[in-house]
């Protein structure tokens, strides 16, 4: 969805002004070292997730007799206490984790966009009501709320996604609302209102394309949140324990006492994968920040060297 927004051709309202910064944004991202590293890591993980059934055919959670083996040429990352190949579990786990993370990320960003745009465009009572709801959800402690919701609902993939979206949308709504508010007050929006454009068109075709970079940042943040929170939830045993995912791998590792028996190889890969993905997304996020916020850009001659030179 967001990629569509990013690639959307510039609006007829300000053709030259919108197209140029857009291209320099993409250019800035590609030449930014942080963004490049982040994107490569992400592509590798997505490729692994897609190729998992080809690389490791069969059910990765099949129980075999080769229990708790150290990493060896046959099992690169060793086996669990139940004799499952850790590498296969990790690669297969990326499917569920990335799927849930991306779904939660897109869904929460989408709700955030709707709420933020509606708040900013309609203002008055609607803004008051939506802001109140957003702030209440922001303030309610996330993890306990997540636990309570998961405890009362039927366990399953749908519940995990639903719960994570319920606890995750408010942050993006707040950020997007404040950005939409500042664009709402611009002249070209006023011009669109006067020329009689419909509300939906103004919100999605006038305001939204102008906040593409912040939507992108929000989306990345939401995906990071989704992957991390899913892992935390599953680690607590509140997910669907029958699926293979990074969080469930860690749940089983804890359950089978992998650390107490010293089988560190069971526990390290899944956590490292979550960290790598989150790190890659965070890198892209910071790069987006740097490209769009000139104040944070690397400066050739820092102000402070001048200052210390002047001393």
């Amino acid at each position, binding site marked *: 969805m967001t990629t569509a927004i990013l690639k959307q051709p510039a609006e007829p309202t300000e053709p030259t002004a919108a197209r140029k910064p857009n291209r320099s944004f993409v250019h800035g991202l590609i030449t930014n070292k942080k963004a490049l590293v982040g994107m490569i890591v992400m592509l590798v993980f997505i490729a692994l997730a897609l190729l998992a059934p080809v690389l490791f055919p069969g059910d990765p959670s099949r129980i075999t007799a080769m229990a708790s083996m150290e990493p060896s040429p046959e099992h690169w990352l060793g086996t669990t206490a139940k004799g499952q190949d850790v590498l296969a579990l990790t690669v297969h786990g990326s499917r569920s984790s990335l799927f849930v993370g991306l779904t939660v990320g897109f869904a929460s960003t989408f709700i955030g966009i709707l709420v933020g745009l509606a708040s900013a465009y309609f203002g008055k009572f609607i803004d008051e009501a939506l802001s109140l709801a957003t*702030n209440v959800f922001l303030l309610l402690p*996330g993890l306990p709320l997540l636990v309570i919701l998961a405890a009362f*609902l039927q366990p399953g993939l749908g519940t995990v996604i639903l719960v994570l979206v319920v606890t995750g949308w408010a942050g993006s709504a707040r950020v997007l609302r404040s950005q939409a508010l500042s664009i709402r007050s611009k002249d070209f929006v006023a011009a669109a209102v006067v020329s009689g454009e419909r509300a939906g068109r103004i919100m999605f075709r006038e305001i939204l394309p102008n906040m593409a970079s912040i939507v992108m940042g929000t989306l990345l943040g939401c995906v990071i949140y989704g992957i991390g929170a899913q892992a935390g939830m599953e680690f*607590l*045993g509140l997910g669907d324990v029958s699926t293979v995912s990074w969080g469930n791998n860690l749940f089983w590792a804890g359950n089978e006492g992998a650390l107490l028996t010293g089988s*560190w190889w069971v526990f390290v890969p899944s*956590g490292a994968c979550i960290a790598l993905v989150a*790190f890659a997304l965070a890198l892209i996020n910071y790069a987006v920040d740097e490209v769009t916020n000139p*104040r*944070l850009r690397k400066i050739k001659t820092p102000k402070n060297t001048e200052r210390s030179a002047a001393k």
Partner: protein
Amino acid sequence: MRFILRRLGFYLIAFWASITLNFLLPRFMPGDPVSRMFARTQGKMQPEQIEALRKMLGVDKRPLWEQYVDYMHNILTGQMGVSISRFPTPVTEVIASQIGWTLLLGGTALVFAAMIGNLLGILAAWRRGGAIDSGLPPLLIFIGSFPYFWLAMGALYLFGVVLGWFPIRHAFTDGLEPAFTWEFIGDVGAHLVLPALTIVLVSIGGWMLGMRNTMIATNSEDYITMAEAKGLRPGRIMLRYAARNAMLPSVTSFGMGLGFVVGGAMLTEVVFAYPGVGYQLLNAVQGLDYPLMQGLFLTITAAVLLANFLVDILYVRLDPRVRSN
């Protein structure tokens, strides 16, 4: 004053929302929680206690609004029922015995993370492009990417199991009598190191980057140039002029961090079997102890709201712009 009242109203609405959520959830859940719990206690419950639970969790023939009024009344008068897993201890007593540990763990971690993080942020912004500024942020972002519980388990394995430097579970050694003796306090401190350290490690990055970015903006203000022109010592400009004015967003983060203290330390508490409210909440969920679950959630929410309200009051004191508004 108007600002404070408005904030107070907001927190009351938020609290009402969480009570209502608590009220609605069991009523929309398929199945009958009371009979499930009844099976757990193996008939130890008195008929009137079962009746009270039925009312609380909505296995009830009365109209919804009547149940709602009743529920509100019970919550506001502090009647949260009895715990099932620790039958027949009242929920409020179970919570009271645990909230202290959570505050100790979360509070210690928060204070250390905020102090170290802000200080690093100040230094990074002051020496822009220096060692702290270019080396630490990527490292801290990387550490911050690890799932909390995973880092905690790693620390537990490395420092607790392999090296044996610190105790790995509970808040104090089993069998030690809680008392204000150096022995006991030292023991509690030793048990606190690992859980607190893991929280500090993952949260320090956020503090540092936040402070750094605000401080960079502050550094380009005219009064900083003025202070330099006057020939003030750089250290004084850094702390008294730039950092002091860049502090405000950190105060807000501190309020949110306080909320995190009660709710967010949950995973850490679970990994280290630390007897706080988060650990108890998970136990309550696993033991189908619905009254305790609800009570814990409300307590945690109330604590978060209270912390934020206190920060709001502090904000009025710190920022004159809020006062004149």
